[in-house]
């Protein structure tokens, strides 16, 4: 305790200085890191953009071709007559009816007795 209460001398302060300098110098990196290569990243970016432009153009062309094909098929289907247009309208069973609906087949008449 008495030792700590003794006044500090210049030698004590110099020792503290030396200890701090030694500590920090021992901990410093041996070589200072170079600046991050930000320009390289920046020049790579337009290249990627150009490639993505090509990819975008190709995908739009494919999409347009698909749309054209779909439209052509739709027009062809529209030109064909529907089967319903050719024949008479089909008779439908009324909603809620328990009886069987009319059939296009002729009804079988019951045979006469004997």
């Amino acid at each position: 305790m008495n030792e700590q209460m003794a006044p500090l001398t210049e030698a004590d302060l110099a020792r503290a200085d030396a200890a701090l300098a030694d500590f920090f110098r021992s901990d410093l990196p041996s070589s200072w890191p170079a600046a991050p290569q930000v320009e390289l990243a920046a020049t790579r970016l337009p290249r990627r953009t150009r490639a993505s432009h090509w990819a975008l153009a190709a995908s739009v062309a494919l999409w347009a071709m698909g749309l054209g094909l779909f439209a052509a098929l739709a027009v062809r289907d529209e030109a064909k007559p529907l089967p319903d247009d050719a024949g008479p309208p089909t008779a439908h069973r009324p909603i809620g009816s328990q009886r069987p609906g009319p059939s296009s087949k002729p009804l079988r008449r019951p045979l006469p007795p004997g």
Partner: protein
Amino acid sequence: MTQADFSSLYAELGPSVWAAAYARHLDAAAAADVAQESFCRLWRETREGKAIHHPKAWLLRVARNLAEDQRKSAFHRNGTQAPGGLAPLLARGASPLEQLEVDEERRRVRRWLGELADADREILTLRYALDYETEQIAETLGISAAAVHMRLSRARQRLAELLKPKDEAQP
């Protein structure tokens, strides 16, 4: 900001940014990573058109925050082992006994530094790792030269007191 502007800014402010990060947890390699990340963020921000009027203040703040985040997660990476724990294995030139004494003193200094406030550690890092003068430290940290001088003197005295009993205990 061009690449040339960026490089000159890195050359000018890189050491101060490194010191700000290093002072947080006394790990030189991690501080170098933090400094690089801070500069990359500055580059991205300016590229995105954000106006940064005071790059130095901005960089120091970002570096301190990043280092603080890293310090919080440092335990998960290092466990209870200090970052320089394996450094003695690389030591060359001194006898084992001398090296032991040097290492012991460095460990004491590290422990003592760990107990200081972040601001004090930052001042000591700028002074002893980067050899900054008092005025440079004051200008870097935006405080008065008198405050820097006072903190440095106080820190030296405390460390001198810590190291003194060991000397006087020897015959």
